[in-house]
């Protein structure tokens, strides 16, 4: 598959560093659901998992100036560490006394998420899927999205460059954003 766009694109990262809320919103829309799925795979309490991923983005926003090119690895690492902190706090408490299934699960999930090879598997696939999500946009729509949100061109510049009306640029943009929100089932499941 051809990879034209990169979430590591320097303009996009620069916008995040500078606190551009639009750019950060794109990042949120791209990653939120996926990071939530990762977190809730290791944390059984759904609300706590949501809280954790919310905190991930609050932290990423606070530290936006430090985000370098590997934004994917950065977000994954904060999520992982927050989940581990959470599991550690749950694990530490009653473990000496109680011995029920949910506690053992907390314990083994903590171990599983600490495993570096496992981390690599998830982190890599996460980036591929984010990329794929952008790649699967219809061709024109993708061009507009990339020029606007990743390269940072103004709607007027895009309309001139692609020889389409500003109105069309706007339509493509809203279609692209909608596409980001809905998710795609095109990928073959491993199982």
């Amino acid at each position, binding site marked *: 598959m051809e990879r034209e766009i990169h979430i590591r694109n320097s303009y996009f990262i620069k916008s995040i560093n500078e606190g551009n809320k639009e750019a950060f919103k794109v990042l949120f829309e791209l990653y*939120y*659901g996926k990071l939530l799925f990762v977190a809730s795979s290791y944390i059984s309490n759904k609300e706590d998992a949501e809280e954790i991923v919310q905190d991930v983005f*609050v932290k990423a926003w606070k530290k936006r100036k430090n985000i370098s090119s590997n934004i994917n690895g950065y977000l994954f690492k904060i999520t992982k560490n927050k989940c581990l902190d959470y599991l550690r706090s749950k694990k530490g408490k009653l473990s000496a006394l109680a011995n029920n299934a949910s506690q*053992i699960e907390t314990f*083994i999930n903590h171990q599983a998420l600490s495993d570096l*090879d496992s981390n690599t598997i998830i982190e*890599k*696939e996460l980036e591929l899927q984010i990329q794929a999500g952008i790649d699967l946009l219809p061709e024109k729509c993708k061009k507009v999205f990339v020029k606007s949100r990743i390269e940072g061109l103004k709607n007027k510049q895009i309309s001139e460059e692609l020889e389409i009306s500003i109105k069309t640029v706007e339509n493509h943009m809203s279609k692209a954003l909608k596409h980001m929100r*809905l*998710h795609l089932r095109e990928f073959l499941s491993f199982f």
Partner: protein
Amino acid sequence: MQEKELIKYIKGEANPEEVKEILKWIRENKEHQKRYAILKAKYVASNLGCLDHEDVDLSYKKFSSKRNKRKSVWYQTAVAAVLLPLLIWQSYTYFQNDGLIVNQDKISTVVVKNIATNYGGQKTINLPDGSTVILNSGSSISYPENFTDTLRQVTLKGEAYFDIERDVTKPFIVQTDHLKVRVLGTSFNVKSYPKDDKIETTLVSGKVEVIQEETEAPVVLTPSQRATFHKEESDIKVDQVDSDKIVAWKQGKLVFDKTPLKQVVQDLKRKYDVEFVIESDSLLHYRYTGEFDNLSLEDVLELIKLSSSIDYKRKNNKIMLNSE
């Protein structure tokens, strides 16, 4: 163990019997743990491409409001900053109309700020001299908008941690119901809830004097010493403590060291905003030792139950405590 069975478990489709088997198998050795970790990671990775994002808008809104939280506190302060001079001006003109001659300086010393926390809450306050106060749950503090030239005095109900800027020309005084704590510049903790039967002052660094209201006799503390004033006996006892544990509440921790259950229950009530009833008399003299690091109320109760002979029941939003 068959891969198929593990996958069934990872997908959450195994029945309790199977779960038990699988957990046992995973815990057997490192190799099994590794196999489980990798398989789980592959499952998580393979599902990343087919998720529904329906409520990402809602989630984003939630995130936005979290991100802006700090701003809203700033906004409130700004509003207060605008309203306060207005208030001063109003009271000034009010007094003038009444035929009283009061100069504006005097009035501004009268402007007292009062800050309170609810049960379960905590606030950090910056005093006009650059000192910081962290106010624990169910507490209040009042202090003048501007300190006078010779004295920095605040009034405390409840518990607070003070980090005081050193200023030898202006002593800092914390006024509580029965005592005064006088310092020059230091950090210390005062716990003085009206409902508790004692007042505790613990020094973290520097030097403080604890002065009993009636006798005016000062007790001087050195770091890691705690002065406990018993309201009934009206006397002060000093002991050596781990000051880190005393101020652990700042980080959301509750630490009890042979603490009477009555006191434990008071602290829990303030932190979790819930009523407790000690049902059995034998528990009144029970002393509890334990640490709760940012736990939920449920977890705290479970832990108490597991580590002592205390059982609990919920009844009409109250927690009833009984000996087992």
